């Protein structure tokens, strides 16, 4: 009763999600690069990429829905498909965040370039690193690697909090830089959201691999407590 065709379909689903993940990751890199060099042509790429990501989201949801309806998956397969549906949504939101950054970059074109006292590329590197690591954990079905992503979220939150504070002060002391500060603040906030999505992805990987729901700091020890039989 080996369900070869079904398990091939699960592999196809995983492959499609990874293509989507590559697109989402690239869109964040591009958006931050557009901010760094103030290049609107890169913003256009981000916007087009976001539309492609949206199409991909629908396609992956459809594949997952078909498998749920036709194959009635159980246990690890069921958890995998649920994880894919949720990761899919998070990746789409990563694409939205890239679009937010690209919109801010367009807005900034109306104002003189100004050096901001915060390190956007550093926040982007950390958030991007979390996305990459959570997806690597997904590729390798590695719950330990996914756990490591969860512990990275704090540093991005701190950087974003500090950026918030710094830019607020800048707006007070130099109101002429308020538009640039506000846009930088929104970009920092968008990157912090990307890190949150990476955290969600990591939690979904843990759910898939171990069957444990570790969201909101509860249920970390849920897996592996069954009453075994005699064999």
């Amino acid at each position: 009763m080996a369900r070869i065709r079904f398990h091939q379909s699960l592999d196809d689903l995983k492959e499609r999600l990874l293509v989507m993940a590559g697109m989402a990751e690239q869109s964040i890199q591009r958006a931050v690069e557009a901010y760094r060099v103030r290049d609107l042509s890169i913003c256009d790429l981000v916007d087009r990429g976001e539309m492609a990501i949206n199409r991909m989201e629908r396609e992956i949801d459809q594949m997952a829905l078909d498998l749920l309806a036709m194959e009635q998956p159980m246990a690890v397969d069921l958890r995998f498909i649920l994880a894919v549906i949720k990761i899919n949504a998070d990746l789409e939101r990563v694409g939205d965040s890239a679009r937010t950054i690209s919109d801010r970059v367009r807005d900034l074109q109306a104002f003189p370039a100004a050096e901001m006292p915060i390190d956007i590329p550093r926040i982007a590197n950390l958030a991007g690193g979390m996305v990459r690591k959570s997806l690597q954990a997904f590729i390798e079905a590695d719950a330990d690697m996914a756990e490591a992503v969860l512990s990275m979220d704090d540093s991005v939150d701190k950087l974003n909090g500090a950026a918030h504070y710094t830019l607020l002060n800048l707006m007070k002391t130099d109101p002429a830089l308020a538009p640039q500060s506000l846009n930088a603040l929104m970009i920092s906030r968008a990157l912090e959201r990307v890190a949150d999505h990476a955290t969600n992805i990591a939690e979904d990987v843990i759910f898939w691999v171990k069957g444990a729901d570790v969201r909101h700091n509860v249920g970390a020890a849920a897996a592996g407590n069954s009453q075994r039989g005699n064999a």
Partner: protein
Amino acid sequence: MGVGIEVNSLNAWYGANHTLQDITLHIPANEATALIGPSGCGKSTFVRCLNRMHETNPIAKVTGEVKVGGQDIYAETSAVEVRRRIGMVFQRPNPFPTMSIYDNVASGLRLNGFRNRRVLDDVVHKSLESAALWDEVKDDLKKKSGASLSGGQQQRLCIARALAVDPEVLLMDEPASALDPVSTAKIEDLIFQLKSQYTIVIVTHNMQQAARVAERTGFFLNGKLVEFDSTHKIFTNPGDKRTEDYITGRFG
């Protein structure tokens, strides 16, 4: 009311074939417990040991302990009494073909010496109602034979016949596998209702069915009980790799 079943170190053989190996499990009262596993894994043999049907085969042998409501059914009571307390429904509906609907349901009571017409009428009525068949057959009780009913109705008739002798446990060996989806849904609804009064053990190849009707599920493989846990756990996150391989179709 239903009673719990305690099975301790149960072993069963057909000739030299050791079909059940050291099974220990506790089936709670007033719940449905599903038994799953590939063909030949021992799950049907297991339920047949629960009402001493297994020993009706001359080459069969059983050792170990089966306590139903605290009473060892192999040591403390007769096989006939055991089968009254523990009713059984099989894969293919098997009403007595020449008997009317009424006589089918009353057969067990008559066999046990009940002759009072009022009592029989009452039990037949209640049993058919419990089996969700009364409304469909009440006008033809003595006119139609059991065999004239549809497959799904015949199966519910067999359930009514089992309920008529007031059992504590109902064993069901693939009760819906020969039925269409509508009849299957009726049997599943019925299992749900019967749980409040009886302990139900159901053998099924249909894993979705096990997931729908049972609180607990046991997975058998090669004569052994691999895992026994809440149905939720078995179908979302089983503890044993072999269970997971079976229910996700990674076997063979």
